[in-house]
């Protein structure tokens, strides 16, 4: 087994590609892209609903990570997949909570643009 993350990536990618199969690296790369997009959304968008979508992307990319590690890194355990199921439930709970807070923001400010929420100095 390799001892570094990058060497692991570099070894795995051509091997998997030549075998015509999807390997751990592919999953990790997709997950990293989705995580990056989620981060980008949270940083740049100012609409509360869009922020929520960004947070959901973050959670789901991590779920993808867990499933990939469960499939490729630990062959005989389902831990990662079970964690992902928990994660989906948590994401749903978080979404409902976020919508409730957004609804209250709308009731108080008549907008869901977070830049309008600036009565606190931070």
């Amino acid at each position, binding site marked *: *087994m*390799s*001892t*570094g*993350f*990058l060497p*692991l990536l570099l070894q795995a990618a051509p091997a998997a590609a030549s075998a015509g199969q999807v390997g751990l690296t592919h999953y990790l790369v997709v997950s990293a892209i989705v*995580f990056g997009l*989620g*981060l980008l959304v*949270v940083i740049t968008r100012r609409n*509360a609903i869009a*922020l929520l979508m960004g*947070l959901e992307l*973050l*959670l789901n*990319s*991590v779920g993808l*990570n*867990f499933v*990939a*590690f469960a499939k490729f*890194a*630990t062959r*005989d*355990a*389902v*831990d*990662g997949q*079970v*964690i992902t199921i*928990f*994660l989906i439930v*948590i994401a749903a*709970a*978080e979404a409902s*909570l*976020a919508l*409730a*807070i*957004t609804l*209250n*923001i709308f*009731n*108080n*400010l008549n907008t869901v643009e*977070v830049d309008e*929420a*600036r*009565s*606190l*100095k*931070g």
Partner: protein
Amino acid sequence: MNGLFTILDAPAAPAIGWDDLGGILPVLVLLATGSLALVLDLFLKEEASPPVPAGKWPLSFVSLLGTAVAGALLCGHIGAAGKPWSGFLGAVQVDLFSDAIGLIVVLGAAFCLLGAGDALRRRGIEQGEFHALVLYAAASMVLFVQSASLVMVFLSLEALSMAVYILTAFQRDEKRAVEGGLKYFVLGGLSSGFLLLGLAFIYGATRSTNLTDIAGALAGGQPPADSSLLVAGLGLTLIGLAFKVGAFPFHAWVPDAYEGAMSVVTGFMAVAVKAASFGVLLRVAVLFGGAGASGPGSPEARGALLAGISGLAVVTMIFGNLAALAQSSAKRMLAYSAIAHTGYLLVGAVSAMEARPGGEQAAGAGLLFYLFPYALMSLGAFICLSHLGEGAEDRESIDSLRGLAERHPAHALALLVIMVSFAGIPPTAGFWGKLFIFREAIATGHWELALVGILTSIVSVYYYLRLVVAMYMLPQEGGLPAPSLEARIGGKLALAIAAIAVVLVGLFPGIFFQISAACALR
């Protein structure tokens, strides 16, 4: 070895039984009381206006009783010096350390509930949901400290965060409360994302979900399958936890959420959320980066954690204290001072990582000792602001506290004791807390952290004493009504207990330090 779900592969393995439930009895008591408060609220009639002083007193009574029982159970376990116990197939680990942190969490919940009755009644939102959420949050926090598996860490963290998001925005017709709740939610969700990604990397690097198994394998000289992935995972986990404890530069939510929430909730957040997060931070730091524990398995992890936590400690102490200087609102000033205290606690975490298992120093005794007076001071201060409030407003600006000594001498005296203790002037509890933390840091060779800590706490004297000067030396500014406080028994009681306990801990620090040392991580 494969952690929680080995049972699926081996049907003969022991299943979860009654013993497991017995082990987490304090958590179950908190959960049951919370649910009871929810149901009880249905049978309590809404009082006609003007609100009667007693309001829905059974709600407060039942929920306080629940925290008392949970606290007594935790105290009993500490008193009996119970052996570490692991249940739910290794997902939950109960030891004296988790008991001690749990006790501080329950203390925070009890004080919050004591002050909450009046604060909610003044705003006309005395609902059972509030009591239930405080108790659920406290239960999740105790579980958070007890968790020994990645799944439990993540689940209890999410459960406690969601309860606290709602508590922040509980006053939902108040602009600032909802805004504080939104900011807390967005940044909290972001930090959960980082923490989760960190946990995923730890899982991928070590192929296990059980923290104790992972650390045991590393200590046994078994290198992780992928050590740079492990370091990345630990770094992301540290970032997530740094958000939760409010360390600079991950502090952005702290002032806004603290200011937006009702003061009683702010006190609960400042104490309970921080204590629970520090419990997990210390456990992770010592398991993966402790001097003896991490062993030859992964020296990189130890180096990264040590550097990360020391760096956070220095910048957090400097930033928190400097930013607090500029505040004109007492509540916001206390929020920045909470950031500064996070810095001191991080120093305690660094020295805990240097302690060798079985050695003379127990890991985290200083941090545990510090948390106790810090909890009393924060709860006392925030409850006092809530207690002196009127209508939907708490007493928030420093100017509004002018001349308090003439109108409410007892309250001013209690706040004086708390501020002097916050500033770390001997012989108060806060002084001993800082002394033990900095002494540990010097003893473990981190004198530069102690130096920064001592210098910044000298700076902090200025802003704490500003409040005292306003109360005792400046004349009252006209116009502000002096609320009659006769009916507000809960807040008065909480403030008195906090001030007296701060004095007592200051007079007899030895006993409390021995208890902290006995409860420290082994």
